[in-house]
């Protein structure tokens, strides 16, 4: 199944592979969502340090997430997921209160259709219905195919919120075909369990970074710390990296055309400092350090959580044998990755390149060499 490890796939220490013979240990992030309090200090600290511009003043209706996604103008993004599921509370939060059914996936998704453009061209558009639908749990719910195509036309309430409920015969909730209005239930489906997941997402700094592999200008490069950085003085805005990213992280800034994303604070690392987001994080949800150490710490944390009765705790992006050779920024999650808007099984989009090489033989290799030579010309 898994092809032989090589520079483009499989376990690897990426910095030496990219020519850093005396590379320091690979550095990365471990984001433990089980202690995240959703304060967004990471988002702000990142913007302050890196001079990242505003990403739009839109109420997205995705719980407390008004950032929406990782974009060229948001290099950290805190996702909020409200779920009618147990959260390890001793007694379910709403046990014994007179509740009906939970808020529906549709309600969140419809809302997302009302968001405005944010001046960026992200891999995952902010406020897409599928992203918003995660809020209600159970993964991406395609309840709103029509709306996704044209939100304003398909949903008169979203287009004209003043119309909501006015003059109607009875309570109207969103007007969605097939969407169960909350509170309409018989009481049997009364919500008692609830949990509020928060997760600070960031560029994964993949071991095999497709964005880097496809970059024709050498703007994207592997640093000595094993991280992946866009060099703003080189990027020409071709946009190849955007479609290459299996996570939808990298994004183009509309006004300058260049691609931007988390640099893992390359300038701070060089000075022996902690990246801005990890430095600010009040609860140590974002931890920075040598990747090997972080992986050990993360494994221990998962074990502790399992012992404390949180069986759903699991790691994401930690495995060097996964489709991207493991992430430099990996996570402890409390639900399926899709719930947080993460792909369940990301695969580096350049995985098949070696296979093609084998088949094409010497000629292809020669071509590749020529291409490399072209890169050199472009980046020197």
């Amino acid at each position, binding site marked *: 199944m898994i092809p032989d490890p090589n520079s483009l796939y499989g376990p690897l220490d990426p910095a030496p592979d990219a020519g850093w013979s005396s590379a320091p240990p690979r550095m990365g992030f471990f984001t433990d969502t089980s202690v995240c309090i959703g304060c967004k200090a990471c988002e702000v*600290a990142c913007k302050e340090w890196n001079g990242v511009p505003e990403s739009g003043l839109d109420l997205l209706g995705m719980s407390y997430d008004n950032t929406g996604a990782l974009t060229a103008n948001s290099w950290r993004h805190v996702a909020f997921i409200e779920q009618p599921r147990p959260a390890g509370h001793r007694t379910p939060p709403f046990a014994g209160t007179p509740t009906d059914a939970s808020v529906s996936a549709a309600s969140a998704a419809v809302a997302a259709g009302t968001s405005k453009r944010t001046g960026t061209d992200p891999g995952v558009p902010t406020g897409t219905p599928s992203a918003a639908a995660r809020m209600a749990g159970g993964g991406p719910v395609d309840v709103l195919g029509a709306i996704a195509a044209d939100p304003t036309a398909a949903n008169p309430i979203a287009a004209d919120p003043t119309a909501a409920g006015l003059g109607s015969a009875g309570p109207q909730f969103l007007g969605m075909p097939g969407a169960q209005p909350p509170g309409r239930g018989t009481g049997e489906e009364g919500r008692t369990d609830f949990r509020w997941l928060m997760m600070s997402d960031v560029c994964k700094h993949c071991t095999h970074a497709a964005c880097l592999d496809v970059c024709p200008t050498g703007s994207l490069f592997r640093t000595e710390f094993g991280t992946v950085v866009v060099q703003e003085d080189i990027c020409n805005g071709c946009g190849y990296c955007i479609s290459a990213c299996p996570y939808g992280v990298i994004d183009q800034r509309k006004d300058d055309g260049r691609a931007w994303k988390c640099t893992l604070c390359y300038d701070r690392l060089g000075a022996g400092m902690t990246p801005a987001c990890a430095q600010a994080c009040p609860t140590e949800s974002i931890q920075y350090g040598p990747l090997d150490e972080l992986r050990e710490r993360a494994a221990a944390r998962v074990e502790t959580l399992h012992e404390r009765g949180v069986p759903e705790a699991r790691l994401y992006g930690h495995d060097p044998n996964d489709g991207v050779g493991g992430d430099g920024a990996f996570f402890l999650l409390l639900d399926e990755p899709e719930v947080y808007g993460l792909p369940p099984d990301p695969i580096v989009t350049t995985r098949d390149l070696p296979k093609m090489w084998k088949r094409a033989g010497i000629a292809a290799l020669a071509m590749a060499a020529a291409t490399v030579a072209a890169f050199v010309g472009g980046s020197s």
Partner: protein
Amino acid sequence: MGLRTFIEGWPVYRQLTGTDPLGRGAAAQSARSAGLTARTEDADSVARSVCPYCAVGCGQRVFVRDGQVSQIEGDPDSPISRGRLCPKGSASKSLVTSPLRQTKVRYRRPYSTQWEDLDLDTALDMIADRMLAAREQTWEDVDTQGRPLNRTLGFSSLGGATLDNEENYLIKKLFTAMGALQIENQARI
């Protein structure tokens, strides 16, 4: 300098010599990237400060370059905050350098529909005159039974709780000496 020092000086021809044959790492590093430093490293000065938002009292380090605040971040030495800041504290540089900050005196004349400019010194003088006039008009020496009152209820003040102790001390001292009693604070709210 930190970790990068031992990296610096590597020849740019390393791609050709074979360590980075695909040109994705060391060879691709631009001159700008190679020369990057953390801007806190070359600050002219660092002030030990305290976050101005809530009352937790997180330590801040304020980095200054060429007379401008170049970065504000948590003070790792603080036993209260251990170098951490919330989103508001993290936004402190944007707060103090915000383009929305008003840096000129603004004056609105009675019945006017707009602001006009006013010199700071003139404003101070006008305010002093108005305080004295209001005090004069509303002064109370004694109550109906002849007991001392020594006060004016002609003007009042509502002070923020983001002022320094030293500032509050002078405010209270000056107003009290003027007989101004109606001095209040967010602490009442």
